[in-house]
């Protein structure tokens, strides 16, 4: 009898701290939910929509005839099917590289110059705002990247190899952080990206607004910073390497709903 009572007390003691305290990641989730209501990404969305319609560049044209993969001017649903192969450029392109192509062909901007511009500056800031608005138009839709073209399948395979490629001073690969469950950086849970991480996680969460530095982060910038954290040289804006990685992540996310624009710490 006494033994049973002791066991009971032991259980109560073991359980109570867990009941009283929520985990750090639950706390972070609550904080994010509070922020979600006033997500400043909306400001970038509004800017992107304005940039899409406004006549700009040496040719004084709008982007309204831009073909994002679903025909000229079709914005809704384009984001969840990118990167894909484009016949006109004979290239695999993600959203950002496609926007730059349209800015060059329709508006007359210099493609190489935009690609060299640091994130958050000049025309690159406009590319990010455009990407935010275009992506937000597909909010709630499910990822379904095309894999019918041979090039699209090649990019998936190349992306997979890049994901597991280790190197640099820390001998890191993408898979070092995103290859198994339960990993985190500080208080950030890291999604497993070798499979579908679920709705609104990983590939389905960028572009996102970063509260800590007040910046809008596109997928290209996300990859750029992942490489920086790996102590790798960045493969370059809209390079084949970043698009192959995006293809790998995007195909893996098949069926996941987009929550873009998301909000991050």
């Amino acid at each position, binding site marked *: 009898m006494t033994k049973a009572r002791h066991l009971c007390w032991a259980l109560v003691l073991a359980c109570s701290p867990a009941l009283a305290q929520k985990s750090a990641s639950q706390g972070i989730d609550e904080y994010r939910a509070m922020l979600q*209501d*006033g997500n*400043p990404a*909306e*400001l970038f969305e*509004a*800017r992107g929509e304005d940039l899409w319609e406004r006549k700009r560049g040496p040719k004084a044209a709008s982007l309204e005839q831009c073909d994002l993969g679903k025909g000229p001017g079709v914005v809704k649903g384009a984001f969840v099917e990118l990167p894909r192969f484009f016949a006109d450029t004979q290239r695999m392109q993600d959203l950002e590289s496609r926007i730059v192509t349209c800015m060059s062909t329709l508006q007359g901007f210099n493609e190489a110059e935009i690609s060299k511009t640091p994130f958050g500056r000049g025309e690159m800031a406009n590319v990010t705002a455009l990407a935010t608005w275009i992506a937000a138009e597909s909010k709630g839709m499910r990822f379904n990247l095309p894999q019918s073209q041979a090039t699209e399948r090649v990019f998936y395979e190349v992306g997979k190899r890049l994901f597991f490629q280790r190197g640099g001073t820390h001998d890191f690969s993408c898979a070092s952080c995103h290859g198994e469950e339960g990993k985190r950086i500080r208080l950030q849970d890291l999604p497993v990206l070798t499979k579908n991480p679920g709705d609104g996680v990983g590939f389905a969460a960028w572009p996102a607004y970063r*509260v800590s530095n*007040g910046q809008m982060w596109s997928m290209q910038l996300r990859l750029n910073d992942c490489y920086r954290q790996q102590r790798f040289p960045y493969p370059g804006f809209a390079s084949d390497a970043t698009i192959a990685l995006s293809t790998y992540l995007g195909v893996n996310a098949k069926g996941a709903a987009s929550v873009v624009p998301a909000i991050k710490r």
Partner: protein
Amino acid sequence: MADPMRIRAQASGGKATVRVLMSHEMETGQRRDAAGKLVPAWFIQDVTASLNGKPVMTAEWGPAVSKNPFLQFTIKGAKAGDKVSITWKDNKGETRTDEATVS
């Protein structure tokens, strides 16, 4: 010129909840740039809100408010169709006013 604000105002139970997102750098004046020089302060100092042209709130802000600030408040007695207007003025004298209709 500064980007427009995003204002949402929703009436329920004799009052309206107003949510405002402002596009502003909100530079504190304490940060240094890559060359080690102080980045000059640049932040919103005054915020006023009016309901159908009548002021209902004024606020004095400082450099502690975040970049791209979010402001939420409620107005007693506001109903659907009323006009809510928000104005901010920063320490450089720049100002912006936007209006929304309560829904």
